[in-house]
């Protein structure tokens, strides 16, 4: 069980974006998908979620717990989204509905998939807010009143509220400062493990990946060019594409450590 993507081809209009991608995330596993910006990582997550733009064509196979998702009508995909699969987005500042309060936002998947009383829903939402470390008084606030880290905590709470078996996190920390990045990654990992869910963690940043996953795929220009244990890949990348990403991560880490003193401005400091 889990998700198995095989020979996935996605084209937008006549322009091919993915050329036969294969990847698997088994139940309870945390798997990374790393690649430079523009390599097609988000396109893979969109294909799995049924969020490809209307102009996209998609062939190949995506099996979620043995069920074929490619070609599934939107209504059936919608029944899976937010229930069987949860998604955390790169930029919570723009993804969160600016009109919804934190409470309403986190409750949305519950509203869409379950028949609960308002009280039951609120109880679950407040419990989830505690889990992701959101103070109770933020329940009635709107996204623009939150820090970036708090916004992403709302995003994680929304993705996890229905206890889906698979979480896809598409660069969940890219929009955050490096200190908050670590907190958010650690939070995501601990919650996913606690729920026993599987995680597909997408990033362009190897240093974040090592914190979140043991196994990973390297994507370049719409093709998986390398796969293996994250640590091994970090130490000895085989392909030049993977080497470039690893070197970039090293530089970033050095840079961050060198200026560590300035790193005190975290979300808690705001």
């Amino acid at each position, binding site marked *: 069980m889990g998700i198995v993507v095989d020979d996935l081809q996605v084209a937008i209009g006549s322009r091919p974006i993915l050329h036969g991608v294969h990847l698997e995330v088994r139940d309870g596993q945390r798997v990374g998908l790393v690649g430079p910006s523009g390599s097609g990582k988000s396109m893979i997550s969109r294909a799995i979620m049924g969020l490809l733009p209307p*102009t996209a064509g998609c062939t190949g196979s995506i099996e979620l717990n043995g069920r074929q998702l490619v070609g599934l009508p939107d209504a059936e995909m*919608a029944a899976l*989204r*937010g229930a069987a699969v949860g998604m955390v987005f790169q*930029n919570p500042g723009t993804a*969160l*509905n600016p009109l919804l309060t934190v409470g309403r936002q986190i409750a*949305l998947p519950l509203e869409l998939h379950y028949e609960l009383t308002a009280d039951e829903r609120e109880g679950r939402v407040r419990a989830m807010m505690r889990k992701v470390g959101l103070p109770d008084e933020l329940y009635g606030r*709107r996204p623009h009143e939150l820090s970036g880290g708090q916004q992403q905590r709302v995003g994680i709470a*929304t993705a996890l509220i229905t206890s889906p078996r698979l979480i896809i996190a598409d660069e969940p920390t890219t929009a955050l400062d490096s200190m908050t990045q670590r907190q958010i990654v650690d939070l995501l990992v601990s919650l996913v493990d606690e729920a026993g869910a599987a995680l597909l963690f997408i990033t362009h940043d190897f240093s974040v990946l090592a914190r979140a996953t043991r196994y990973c795929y390297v994507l370049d220009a719409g093709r998986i060019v390398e796969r293996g244990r994250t640590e091994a890949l970090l130490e000895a990348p085989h392909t030049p594409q993977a080497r470039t990403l690893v070197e970039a991560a090293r530089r970033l880490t050095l840079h961050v450590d060198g200026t560590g003193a300035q790193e005190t401005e975290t979300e808690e400091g705001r």
Partner: protein
Amino acid sequence: MIKYLARRCALFALALFVVSVVVFLALRVLPGDLATIMAGLNSPPERVAALRAELGLDRPLAAQYGDWIAGLMRGDFGTTMLTGQPVASVVGARVQITFPLIMLGLLIALALGVPLGCASVMARSARARGLYQAVAIVGGAVPALWAGLVLILLFGRGSGLLPILPASGFPQDGWGDPAQAALALVLPAVTVGVIVGASIMRYTRSALQSVASTGAIEMAMACGMTRRRALTHVGLRLAMPQLVSVVGLTFAEMITGVMVIENLFALPGIGSGLVDDLTHRDLIAVQSELFMLAAFFLVIGLLVDLTHRALDPRLGEDDE
């Protein structure tokens, strides 16, 4: 919010003042003597002088402006030269035609444009998207005159379904017979509605697309909404501020924009009335009418801004 309201209203008053000065000066600074123009270029000098004295045009500019504004404050917009009626009642009669025409036209435009705009974003096949695109472009490119003529030929002359011909036009007694008057507005309103509807469709489309590109639609879908539901429930609501602006501006624009339609269908509305007054060189009436139009545009702008404020929680607290 209170602070914002006060600031916005002060701005409104300031703009109103500037507009009044501009309108007032424009008619007096333009080349040519106002009294001479109004009396007609070949009138004897005595007639010009008499008119100048009668209208107070021989007094200092500041005094003239003061008189005019004092009149406006009392609700006295002057009298028309042609019939000697108060400008206010003449404009009032025209508003009774133009306003229902615009409201009806706008309703038709919204009823056509918003669903079509949504549908064009939701369309999954390339052919359907192309079709919607074509509808928007063709609809927007049709000249009002031509669309009106076609409708007149189709309904007025051809089948006689609606008793509306340019010759008959609006009933002489105005809204004395409401059914007759309303009927006279149907074809013109449909003409306006189709043309404006095409542009509402394009605006709806681009507003929805700009909202969709922020990721809020994807997020709503990721929570379990279908694409259609996310667009109609989340997308339209988020696009609402943009749409309100467009509708407000369109509404204001239509007041003068329907001039062609009013002329074509022989409706004595604001647009055709303004042209009438200009051709009759009734410049005092024109001055008050232009001021009323400008004031109306400013009111629409004020309403649009306040609605924005109410619709978007991100505005509101930030600037307190």
